[in-house]
């Protein structure tokens, strides 16, 4: 049996031409898989939940399973321009909507959320229905309803009310329809009727802005700015952008980006062997996700810090559930910031349990999975799938009498040049994280042997993960990756040849202003290019490689 297929096959598998290039990349300078511009994006699950909370209040629960989001080159935001809704998916949206609507019309909420009712001045409730439909529709559809839409919905409501013998049941049925409507479930751009051609209209602008900054539907002030035409004027747009960036809701929007960027939703499906990692549980897993997001917003928003410092920070958000994983005492309830001392191996977000546990096996670590995930998410590189015909037996025999540590076993793998080409890229990073076990807990030894945490990143040898964090901090690839990811997140598509210079400019400006995330987002939000109508073009996702592919590297 061959130990490895040839390097040529590896390269072919990556869909990348040329022996020396192992990575395709979504970062500047390298071509990305084609994803054409789209003017229709499906709401992500997080967006749906946020919109419902905004329109009906946080006490209205959203219960049910959503059609899964699709990741294209790591981002669900890009996938949102490629997905539709399947029959089973629509059933789910319908069931979720009925559950929401039942709560809206419950005795507890009705007065606040519906308010009006048929009465002497409005015997069949037509006026009440019209008011409710217009007001709710504006927030749900992110645009005013056309007169015929209101007329049809009122007629529908009254007809249903007669059939069911109840005005409320009739209006509730109409609201379910609004929540299953394409105007709600998809963000559909409308071209501007006046002004420069190729731009979206004021309401579509408001929508883009709101989902970028807050990951939810526009609020009343933003809708008013859309209605008045203020968003079409630079000073009007700037006023809204600054207002929204100053709002605590920008923290929600930033969390949404990093949740997507770091693919933290995968933690929902994470399970660890309870016998091997007794300290790990579902609630711990949930807390690790929250920890990473809070650590990020503490630095980037609360302290307006330098993005690159995420890789060297010792300030970790901490909560009681995570105490056993980090072996630190947590006396305060809720969340607080815990600062690890100088010299402690916990440095930077790559040493947080979220990423460490997510990219490991249920019962042990995987330097390869960790290295691959970091390369792909934080450096925007793609690691090809392993060749089909590899014999791992010698390499990863955990009872091997001479190869006791994961490093020794993996390095045996590197004797083979064909395997080495990829493993050098992944393992050089992943092995430096070996002091963290499959649940993200610190350990000094494996099978009684001290763990060696030397590694190599971009031809630079280093010792220990703190040094790796510094190399990441200083690498332009790390900041370029973030810039292109934020751009792709905002635009819902990959960077294409014609966009490259704009993305390069964005990175220059990001660097010139101290790598402030808030400034990066502000620059995008103020750029007129962010509000152009997507030129419809044939979509080709054939080359897209995603986290949804079913195989996992060992």
């Amino acid at each position, binding site marked *: 049996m061959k130990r490895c297929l040839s390097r040529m096959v590896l390269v072919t598998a990556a869909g990348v031409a040329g022996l020396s290039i192992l990575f395709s990349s979504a970062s500047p300078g390298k071509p990305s898989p084609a994803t054409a511009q789209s003017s229709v994006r499906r709401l992500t699950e997080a967006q749906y939940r946020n919109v419902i909370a905004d329109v009906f209040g946080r006490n209205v629960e959203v219960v049910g399973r959503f059609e899964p989001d699709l990741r294209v080159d790591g981002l669900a935001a890009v996938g949102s321009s490629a997905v539709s809704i399947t029959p089973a998916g629509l059933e789910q949206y319908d069931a979720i909507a009925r559950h929401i609507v039942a709560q809206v019309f419950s005795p507890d909420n009705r007065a606040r959320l519906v308010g009006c009712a048929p009465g002497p001045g409005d015997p069949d409730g037509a006026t009440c229905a019209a008011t409710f439909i217009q007001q709710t529709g504006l927030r749900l559809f992110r645009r005013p309803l056309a007169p015929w839409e209101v007329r049809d919905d009122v007629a529908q409501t009254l007809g249903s009310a007669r059939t069911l013998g109840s005005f409320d049941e009739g209006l509730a049925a109409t609201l*379910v329809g609004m929540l299953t409507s394409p105007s709600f479930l998809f963000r559909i751009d409308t071209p501007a009727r006046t002004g420069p051609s190729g731009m979206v209209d004021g309401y579509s602008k408001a929508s883009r802005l709101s989902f970028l900054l807050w990951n939810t539907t526009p609020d009343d002030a933003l809708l008013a700015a859309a209605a008045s035409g203020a968003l079409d004027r630079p000073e009007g747009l700037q006023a809204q952008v600054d207002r929204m960036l100053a709002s605590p809701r920008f923290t929600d929007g930033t969390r949404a980006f990093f949740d997507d960027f770091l693919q933290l939703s995968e933690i929902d499906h994470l399970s660890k062997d309870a016998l091997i990692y007794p300290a790990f549980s579902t609630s711990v897993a949930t807390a690790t996700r929250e920890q990473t997001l809070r650590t990020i917003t503490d630095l980037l928003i609360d302290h307006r810090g330098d993005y690159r410092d995420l890789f060297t920070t010792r300030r970790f958000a901490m909560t009681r559930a995570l105490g056993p994983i980090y072996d630190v005492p947590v006396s305060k309830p809720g969340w607080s910031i815990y600062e690890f001392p100088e010299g402690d191996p916990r440095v930077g977000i790559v040493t947080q349990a979220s990423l460490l546990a997510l990219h490991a*096996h249920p019962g042990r670590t995987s330097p390869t999975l960790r290295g691959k995930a970091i390369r792909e998410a934080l450096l925007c590189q793609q690691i090809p799938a392993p060749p089909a015909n590899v014999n791992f037996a010698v390499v990863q025999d955990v009872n091997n009498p001479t190869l006791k540590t994961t490093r020794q076993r993996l390095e045996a793998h590197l004797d083979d040049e064909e395997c080495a080409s990829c493993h050098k890229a992944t393992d050089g990073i992943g092995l430096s994280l070996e002091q963290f076990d499959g649940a993200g807990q610190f350990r000094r030894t494996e099978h009684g042997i001290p763990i060696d945490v030397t590694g190599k990143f971009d031809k630079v040898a280093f010792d220990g993960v703190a040094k790796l964090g510094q190399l990441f901090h200083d690498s332009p690839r790390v900041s370029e990756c973030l810039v292109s990811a934020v751009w792709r997140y905002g635009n819902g598509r990959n960077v294409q040849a014609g966009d490259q210079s704009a993305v390069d400019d964005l990175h220059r400006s990001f660097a010139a202003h101290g790598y402030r995330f808030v400034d990066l987002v502000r620059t995008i939000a103020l750029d007129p290019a962010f509000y152009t109508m997507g030129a419809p073009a044939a979509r080709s996702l054939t080359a*897209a490689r995603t986290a949804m592919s079913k195989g996992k590297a060992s």
Partner: protein
Amino acid sequence: MTNPISRRGFMLRGALGGASVAVGIPILDAFLDTNGTAFAATVGGGRLPVRFGTWFWGCGMIPERWVPQKAGADYDLPPQLAPIKAVQQHVCVLSGFDVMLDGKANLPHISGNTAVRTGESAEAWQGIKAPTFDVLISDAIGSGSYFRALDLSLDGNPQTSYSYRNGSSLNASVPSPLELYEKVFGSDFHDPNNADFKPDPKFMVRKSVLSGVGEQRRALLAKVGAADRARLDQYFTSVREMEDKLALQLQKPPPAQACLRPDAPVPVRGDITDIDVRKANHKLMTRLLGMALACNQTRVFNMNFDTAAAELRRAGDTTGYHQSTHEELVDRTLGYQPTVDKFALGSMEAWADFVQTLSEIPEGAGTLLDNMLVLAHSEVSLAKNHDVSGIPVMLAGRAGGRVKPGLHVKGSGEPVSRIGLTAQQVMGVPVDTWGAGAMRSNRAVDEILV
């Protein structure tokens, strides 16, 4: 934008005019043999539908311990097939059918699976061009029942599904027995054997509302480019299908002999990746599925016992099934990987259990299984090196008398697409050639056809 005469307006007037059942609802076609495809033997004057499903397991088998020597009936059962002994009379084994990669790379756990399902290997699920064959079959026979298809997984992850309309349209799974119960036997369930059927006006209203949603189609499609149009059109197709299923709720369902509304399942506690816990949950899920089929709630299903690149494990072991396939040393005395062998055996035990359960539900003169075709497959043969030649496939059931059960057919290197083609033809999909490149074939597996 104007909308002078709406379909909804028409429906509404029907409702307001005092009709007890809404106007414009298509006649239930579930038991009308319009295309002569999806119906089996008659019983008590009614015809029995033929159902189709897939059963997926991960990481294949060890060929020398799985492939029978003898072709035809009464085939021998090598050690890994021993678990199916009690149901062998229902099961056809199709061995030696190959995936032709046509020069493409063998992407571990993806190439084989996409090839079996779409007749062409792809390097990522998003890269597939054609729908998977279960979707083609469900397009042909799925519309007459409440659920067009039931996609099921047991790992709590709805993304564990190998059913795709296209590369960006996954049919997500119901990932636990309890969720399946709520979906099928929850508040929308109509017991077909209930004597006093009264159409619930709520369904009429819901249908009418959806009809209004569907009316936006033309105006929206005119607004967007071609790729977006295709996506929105798919959404509107889903709307239409939901209208049709609500219409079904307004008609008295035909009686279903073996239909009994089951009790809510009590999920098995423990690590859902542990193979024993998985088998127990699979048993619960299978019983619910059997009743969903017997109650005519669906005609198409995909049951995923495990993921491709099997995630099954034994609680407490650092190394799971998938890792073992690559890392476990071949035992020199035994001549195979013993841990891998145990997991493969466990998968076959679950498959046997699945077939047994469906064969115990009476229907007409026979059983539910007699009126089904189940296609079981994995994504590789020998997982150790991701071999896609001789990918294991089995069939169960008689498909209403169209399939001869209990045979072993040796594929001898023929393309595995012949099996997908055969399944589609048995289920009445009008297709004479299927697959792409070297996998393109117009030859059914005649040996199993009546």
